[in-house]
């Protein structure tokens, strides 16, 4: 069996998963902080 088709035990990438979850958390923080900032301005439609 070739390298790329081996079962996924050899495909463990825990470091990358931690990095991407960090990305998701900062994303959520920035995103909702901006909704909060938006909620503070005048009302407009």
């Amino acid at each position, binding site marked *: *069996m*070739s*390298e*790329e*088709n081996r079962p996924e035990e*050899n*495909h*463990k*990438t*825990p*470091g*990358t*998963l*931690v*990095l*991407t979850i960090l*990305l998701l958390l*900062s*994303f959520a923080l*920035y*995103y909702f902080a*901006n*909704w909060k*900032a*938006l909620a503070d*301005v005048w009302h*407009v439609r």
Partner: protein
Amino acid sequence: MSTIAIAGTPQASEPPANVAGNHPAGAVRKCDTTGLPVCKTAERYVKLNAVMAVVFLLVGGVSALLLGLTRWPSVHLLPVDWFYRILTAHGLNMLIFWIIFMEVAILYFVGTTLLNSRLASKALAFTSFAMMLTGALLVNAMVFTGRADVMMTSYVPLRAHPGFYLGVILFAVGTLIGVINFFATVYIAKRDHTYEGSVPLVAFGAIAAAIIAVVTLLHGAIVMIPAFLWSLDLIGQPDAAWYRLVWWGLGHQSQQINVAAMVSVWYFLAHITTGAKPLNQAVCRGAFVLYILFINIASAHHLLVDPGVGATWKIWNTSYAMYLAVLASMIHGFTVPASVELAMRKKGFDKGLFGWLFAAPWRNPGFSAFFLSLVIFGFLGGITGVTLGTQQINIIAHNTLRIPGHFHTTVVGGTSLAFMGLCYYVVPLVFRREYAWRGLVRVQPYVFAAGITLMALAMSFAGSYGVPRRHWDIEFSGAPFSPGFDAAAHFMMGLVGVGAVVAFIGLLVFILLTVHAVFLGRSNEGRAMTAW
């Protein structure tokens, strides 16, 4: 090519690949480092396009320095007319000429070397290059002689000299011809069976970029031809809202070509610097398909507080049809570092969560440029882009410095930095010349990344205090009222200046070392390139 024969099962439905490719005799050489075939015609045009890319990068870079020194409140270098003139030149040279010349070079390289094919047409490659160069020179001539102080966007009814629109049209049509030449190469490679099965992943990414380029350039033609005719007084003024709608089909989507090309370059550099292989090609390709189908409609990001287009149109289009292109970027943001992690772990750097990352080849400028590009694009560019492109949130961001703060982390910290990392391999492999002063090359990506990050973050903060983009004087001298920005905003504008200077130093080091290597570097013909 390793294929696995399962006992009793016949092989693929396609006939076997023609390993020699479809090159005429003498038109191909074997790369001394990688063993890959290099089409000599394509190589010539890769060189020509890459050299012009760097020339326009220098023009855009000097402009950037002047702009940074003008928006630095205590320096305020340029007079008002030259500020807007240089700003116009900066946008066009950086966002259009540097990047698209580079991308045409990438397309020619990928279409021929990775697909093992000859370039479809020498004549088209020449026509494309000649038109692009003429167009870019014409635009620059118009801008620097003060006949097109209209910004990169040239929003009607602002009006430039007809030569300006003609230059943009020539450049766009020239690019389109180059893209057609690439597609023709993809076609003849398949027809001549120069490869077997599916195209390589990097080629697939390049195809995605080329498809996005077609959409972009069609919009460019639709909007620029009426603007050109209007500047000649042959037709009436195009409608302002219509112009914005179609122009951003050019302006925003041209940046999506960059995204697709940059991600391909990430896969390329990850492989060539660490031996990384994607975990699952179907996932990577699926993400590129999502780009092709959905990323272009986010041109709506620029019209979120515009009159005329309604909330449904805005919400649907700004969300890339339910954020499917964002999903694609988040997938690449995983698959690219994961492939590096896997490769490093297999080499034995298996300690803890991040042992692989610390052991990565940080002294290799190809790797550091690629990984910094990934981090800057993901953490700064991606997050700010999606947030600012949220329909309602755009109310507190439109046309403030938050917007350039965002796109300097995507297009400069992301795409330009990745392309610089690419050059550290293109020059030794295609020009077959070695870089000198290698210690300086090793620090270049860090200097550039630090400068651009500082500048972009400072722009973002200043923008959240309301500081406008494309603005000569935030003291508003001569205005009836003074808005009086927060002192913190002025401090941030100072940091914009400092960051711009640092980034410019990084850029200048890149350009000088690259020009030196191309014209005076030690030749490595006949042997492998010196490893970084």
